[in-house]
């Protein structure tokens, strides 16, 4: 009848590969194809640029509230790039960078942000879930996708994204426990961006890390420098490999920072110091990765600048294209589409409210 220390889980790991100067630990450096590295960098630039445009459009009243991604590009692209196209992408509401990596169309996202349901039409071949706003509610969905993958004998993976605040919700704990119990092929990517609207990470949980929350559910957890795209990629590669091999889920905590507002409805100056933001700007994932690519000789300065320009040019026409699309969209009765497989008679009657003098009391 002893009282003794128990070993309940493997020790938690922390991973960082690339420092702020773009120097790296060569032993940890992943062996990635140059073309892919360039693609990752370009997508980071696209996300940053698109974020800026969305913010301008929001301030100009062209679109509604949205949640900027700036600062979290490495976490999202580092993780998402570890998945194949056939794997499932289950986002929260800030995954602009992951969305672009998946081949998402900025015009669609613009439509979504301008308040048009057509913006979330998922292309036929994409295994992408729509933006999910209620915090942590998408995690159980990813778990179900993963259960079906296993039952159908496939080797795909479900990758889901969420923030530090989400780890407080019941859905987070239920999803992790379920995934752990059935050893499901799901990768939980937590972007710990330090702030859940106005509540700092240390007021969200007394837990020292978020990664360790996996351990209680029998899920390996790893904390990585979320502004180091190589570290995120390595951790995600391992997690995806584990899931694909049938060895269960992983919780990856990316330590990162939300450089801008929670959403455009928010004013961070009410709760956080500009100094803190400045400190994190020095750890911006984009220049860090650029320095790495330059040091490796993958991109020279001119090419990197040129890429910035070409991204700007590419996205320069998005608003005009979105406006053109909006012109083609249907009227209010579009809201009756996709409510059911077949529109029930009473809804068919209600649809006629718009543009006719039908009596409302007629139930069909």
């Amino acid at each position: 009848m002893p009282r003794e220390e128990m070993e309940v889980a493997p020790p938690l790991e922390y991973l960082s590969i690339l420092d702020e100067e773009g120097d790296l630990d060569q032993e940890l450096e992943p062996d990635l194809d140059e073309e892919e590295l360039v693609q990752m960098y370009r997508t980071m630039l696209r996300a940053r640029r698109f974020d800026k445009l969305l913010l301008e459009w929001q301030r100009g009243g062209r679109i509604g509230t949205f949640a900027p991604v700036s600062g979290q590009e490495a976490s999202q692209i580092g993780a998402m790039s570890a998945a194949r196209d056939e794997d499932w992408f289950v986002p929260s509401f800030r995954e602009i960078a992951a969305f672009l990596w998946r081949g998402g169309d900025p015009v669609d996202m613009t439509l979504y942000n301008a308040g048009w349901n057509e913006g979330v039409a998922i292309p036929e071949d994409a295994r992408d879930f729509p933006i999910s706003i209620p915090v942590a509610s998408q995690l159980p969905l990813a778990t179900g996708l993963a259960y079906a993958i296993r039952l159908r004998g496939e080797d795909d993976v479900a990758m889901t994204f969420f923030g530090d605040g989400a780890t407080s919700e019941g859905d987070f704990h239920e999803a992790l426990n379920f995934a752990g119990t059935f050893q499901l092929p799901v990768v939980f990517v937590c972007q710990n961006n330090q702030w859940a609207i106005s509540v700092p990470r240390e007021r969200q949980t007394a837990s020292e890390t978020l990664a360790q929350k996996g351990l209680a559910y029998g899920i390996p957890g790893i904390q990585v420098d979320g502004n180091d795209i190589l570290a995120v990629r390595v951790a995600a590669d391992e997690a995806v490999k584990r899931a694909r091999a049938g060895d269960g889920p992983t919780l990856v905590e990316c330590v990162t920072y939300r450089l801008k507002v929670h959403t455009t409805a928010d004013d961070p100056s009410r709760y956080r110091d500009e100094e803190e933001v400045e400190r994190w700007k020095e750890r911006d994932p984009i220049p860090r990765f650029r320095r790495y690519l330059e040091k490796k000789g993958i991109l020279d300065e001119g090419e990197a600048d040129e890429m910035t320009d070409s991204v700007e040019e590419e996205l320069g026409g998005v608003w005009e294209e979105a406006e053109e699309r909006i012109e083609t969209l249907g009227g209010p009765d579009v809201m009756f589409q996709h409510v059911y497989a077949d529109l029930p008679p009473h809804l068919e009657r209600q649809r006629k409210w718009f543009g006719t003098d039908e009596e409302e009391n007629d139930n069909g």
Partner: protein
Amino acid sequence: MAEMTMVEALNHALRQEMERDESVVVLGEDVGEVGGVFRVTDGLVDEFGEDRVVDTPVAEAVIVGASLGMAVNGLRPICEMQFSGFSYHAMHQIENHVARFRWRTRGRFPAPMVIRMPYGAGVRALEHHSESREVFFSHIPGLKVVIPSGPRLARSLLVSAIRDPDPVIFMEPKLLYRQFREEVPEDEEAHPLGESRVAREGSDLTVVAWGAMLPRTVEVAEEIAEEEGIEVEVVDLLTVSPLDSKPFTESVRKTGHAAVVHEAQRSWGPGGEIVARIMEDSFWYLEAPIQRITAPDVPVPFFAREEAYLPDKDRIRKGFRAALEA
């Protein structure tokens, strides 16, 4: 007297009740430092401290469940669901404990608490932020469901909700948060729960409305009076549950015509109960079918189409006309 928006009036009620009764506590996501995403709790943390104005983790189930524990143990919690769309995370606490704790404990542990939540469409919000789900809560025995229609009543109803011996779901129509100002007296004012009011008197048609639909319903009533001499009586529910039906069923005995306006979806919506009460109590006085002027039975569309979704003045007027036929 000061002119206040609904946000300011609610803040005023919270501040006065916290001053009056030190057992009153406020908790929720971002209610402290930033004063709530709509600023309803603005400044309270500076005045009453972090122990009484609590920024919680993002976890609605525990916000509501813990509020019940606090209520049973001597506090008067007012918890905030950041948007009504996030209250579903807490639905099992509301249904299984909050609504029936008095009943479950044979009266030993009542749960005097308020669950505040902004709700409703019309402010270009994101998905899941615009629903009008008063029936979710009204269908649960043991809860009171309150919806103000203007700043002054918002203040006086919130005061009553805080002092009520039973749990109150206090739904705030966010379209009206800053839409207009009203005089709100500095002195205490408490409108009793369970009492509707006649917002406009009339003799030709009885219309029931509440929340964000109330101001536009009254506007149409004024227009139709001026243009056509038709006098519409508008009853503002204020408390959706328990439903104070006598004022509108008696009004129908006078007018012989009735309509209900709500932004909730039509089928199984609050209009169904209101129409049933009229049929039960005043059927023999009706001269025409009752009209429901509501949102259609579809999810609230993204905001580019939300104005078409909400009953607007044209549809309200069309509904009035149909209710007046025969």
